[in-house]
């Protein structure tokens, strides 16, 4: 089973905090790998927020191919960060780990955000294809203010391997998942968290509805809906499809992946629209045991459970810093001084939402179609962008 550790904070934090949290949850994961996605970056990337960052791994051959391709496309390398790799027992260095900051090609500099996003997505997918056969290039993300690191090994050992204590790599939102996809053969593309155009999720569970959902997403004719080395990747793409492509508020992600029963919908104020949405997106209903944690481009973080709540998940913290984790011991490791009575264990109808800035913790209840925690005390936050 995967273990999940997400931190959202008003101030920059080190990914080591996530890793220490994962370490406390070690009984639940097998230490077989780790994925990190960092958003709203500090450290060495603090002043490079407007430029896309390509995160990945390559060997010498791949490096040459990558450089040639990026140059040919007109991308100009502004800065490259590479972890100061330290030899750690049990971890095999794969090649050159990098997070490269590029400037857009000249002809894209004045183009819209959408056009730039499309370019970055295409570029990432083409680079992946170029390196997929011989493993010479692996790319995880190519997006402004986002860095991704993934490798096989124990999370704590990987923290040492990547030398993450230095403070080079800091961020306000960090998703960390502790486990390679050991259900199948090891493939870094199967490692959570998954990222697409500003959206990221990681999952603890197994999505038994994977094949019909994958087929549905692939049939939508969007190039980004590809890959699928893991059944969990569809959670990220459903989020992207919902919020970005259909322009539906984030809280409806819950209604799409775990829809209410017909009689439950009857009591919703938006029932007529919701019935249409549920029917139309029937294929995006997830199944099996799953706890999904993710973020959206504006920096909202969330946690949502499958309809049966068969996976653990808890959220807690203090204003300015909140954690969304598989187990409470992980939160204890990061924010010991919080009021534990305010920790939230989301149940089948709940969606935990932490708005950008990590000011407070909110709980959206799908059945009531309202916030049952957070906005009651602070109704003004309705305008915070979460449900807009």
């Amino acid at each position, binding site marked *: 089973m995967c273990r999940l550790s997400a931190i959202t904070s008003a101030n920059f934090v080190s990914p080591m905090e996530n890793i220490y949290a994962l370490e406390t949850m070690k009984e639940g994961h097998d230490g077989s790998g780790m994925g990190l996605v960092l958003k709203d970056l500090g450290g060495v990337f603090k002043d490079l927020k407007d430029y896309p960052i390509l995160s990945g791994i390559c060997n010498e051959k791949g490096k040459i191919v990558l450089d040639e391709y990026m140059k040919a496309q007109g991308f100009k390398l502004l800065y490259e960060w590479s972890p100061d790799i330290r030899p750690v027992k049990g971890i095999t260095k794969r090649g050159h780990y990098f997070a490269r900051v590029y400037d857009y090609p000249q002809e894209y500099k004045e183009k819209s955000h959408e056009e730039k996003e499309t370019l970055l997505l295409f570029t990432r997918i083409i680079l992946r294809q170029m390196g997929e056969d011989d493993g010479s290039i692996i790319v995880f993300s190519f997006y402004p203010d986002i860095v991704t690191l993934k490798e096989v090994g124990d999370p704590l050992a990987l923290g040492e391997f990547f030398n993450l204590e230095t403070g080079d790599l800091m961020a306000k939102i960090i998703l960390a998942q502790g486990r390679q996809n050991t*259900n199948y053969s090891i493939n870094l593309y199967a490692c959570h968290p998954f990222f697409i155009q500003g959206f990221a999720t990681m999952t603890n*569970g*197994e999505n*038994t*509805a*994977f*094949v*019909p959902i994958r*087929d*549905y997403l692939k*049939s*939508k*004719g969007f190039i980004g809906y590809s890959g699928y080395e893991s059944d969990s990747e569809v959670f990220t793409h459903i989020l992207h499809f919902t919020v970005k492509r*259909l*322009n*539906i*508020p984030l*809280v*409806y992600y819950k209604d799409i992946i*775990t*829809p209410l*029963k*017909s009689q439950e919908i009857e009591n919703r*104020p*938006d029932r*007529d*629209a*919701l019935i*249409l*949405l549920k*029917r*139309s*997106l*029937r*294929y995006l*209903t*997830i*199944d*099996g*045991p799953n706890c999904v944690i993710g973020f959206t481009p504006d920096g909202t973080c969330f946690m949502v459970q*499958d*309809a*049966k709540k*068969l996976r653990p998940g808890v959220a807690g913290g203090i204003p300015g810093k909140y954690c969304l984790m598989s187990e409470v011991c992980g939160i204890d490791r990061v924010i010991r001084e919080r009021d534990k009575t305010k920790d939230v264990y989301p149940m089948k109808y709940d969606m935990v939402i932490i708005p950008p800035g990590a000011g407070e913790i909110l709980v959206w209840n799908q059945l009531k*179609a309202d916030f049952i925690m957070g906005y009651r005390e602070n109704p003004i936050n*309705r305008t915070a962008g*979460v*449900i*807009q």
Partner: protein
Amino acid sequence: MKLESESNQLTLKDFPYIVQWKEDRCKRCGQCTSICPVGAIKPSVKMIRTVESEGMLPQPKVRVKAIHIMEQVKDMEHYCTGCAMCQFVCPNEAIEPVYNPQNRFFHFKNTSGEPYRRGGRRNDPNPSTLDRIKFTRISMLTDPALDAGRHEFRIRTYLGRLLQPHDLPLVSAGGRIEIEKKDTFIPPVREIFPVIIGSMSIGALSPPMWEGLAMGVAYLNEVEGIPVVMATGEGGVPSRLLKSRYLKYFILQIASGYFGWDEIIHSLPYMVEDPAAIEIKYGQGAKPGDGGLLMAQKVIKLIAKIRGVPEGVDLASPPTHQTKYSIEEAVAKMIQSMSMAFGFRVPVYPKISGTKTALAVLNNLARNPYAGALAIDGEDGGTGAAYNVSLDKMGHPIASNIRDCYLELVKQGKQNELPLIAGGGIGKKGNLAANTAALIMLGASAVQVGKYIMQATAGCLGDELNRCNICNTGKCPRGIATQDPKLYRRLDSEKVAERLVEVFRSCDVELKKIFAPLGRSTELPIGMSDALGSDDAHMAERLGIAYVC
């Protein structure tokens, strides 16, 4: 016996069933001969000659005596159908028909140049493709299997066209979505149990059979909360049902004879509920390219009134809709006309027989915004009357037909837009839920079942060794497919209703027992082909599922 003049006569070995009669158990009550629906057995008197000798020395005496026996008739007009009603009524278990695999029935069952006609389904007793599919993706350890008895399961499907998400007339305002006020056509959709009772007409079925099913359906919906719908077949329904609130549980069928539609159209202003759907029958799996046929003996007063025809005449529906020469135009118009008649509030869908050309039909319907679904009836579908050659040799198996159609919809991104309804041979070996689940995972949104329902609820005797299968004659010994009061009095409609409820309740549980170990409960696992496996490599390759051995 003079063989020179008797050679053209048939031998018992030519017949599909040979009646085994035990002289020592028979009390000569005559119940077997009187109940036999085809007169295949008759009482007879035979002479027995024995030679006996008593005492120490041979002193042979010839004794001749007359005995009463039961004799099987060696006449193709009165062949034993194997229905076993004789065994059913025999108080002493003295008689039973036994299947004769060496029979040459088809060699001779064409007297007067009339090919063999019958009811039932394709006579192939081997396990079908559906019965060779297993569910091999068991959730275990990597993800916990669900508990069929404890977790909530949603075993429902949609009947009717579903809008693509981009076509939904929705707007977001204040964090909430609502329906935008504009003239977007939102197709009507019903939420139903994924097993539909397939089209069996009120003329083909006896009054207690049809009433029993109708009562059972109402009970399932209103008491059990299982939203089962039932298709009527061609021929309409009684006026009082059309005007009742129960109409919502029925799919009205229009076929090439348009029988019953005068009554339906005239009842429109008085309907208090819409029907579940309208099925336009273009084909039937049991007899592709053939029309419907209700034999004259079934066209009694009630049936004649509902259908708007004279009593006692053969009612043949043409093989094709005479006005429907083009799918692009005429079929589209018919779908629109039927939609319009019910104010665009009722899903309208065509039913075709399984065919290699199903993809062409599918593609046309995929482009028709008013088409509510596509029902495909495979070669193992049943009928009340058809030529044996049509039943046995014509048509397409449902499994690969539905799979091809589903994958084509996936290619177009329309797998959730146009529901596929699969029929033909479901429950042939009694595996109603397993066959249903297999078809759903191959891509069907729902299935339609007829023959199994008759067998399970009313004890229909028909099987794939051509047992009984005389629905076409109006002499159904169970009282299911007959309009003869002497026969249908044997059937208790309340018992039929009870059995129907039992069948659907157990099917509901069995579906959960299949879906739970697969880790599926929240939504019907349509297209979940990764769960399926077959022990036949070619079959597996054709269907795009795993080969397991």
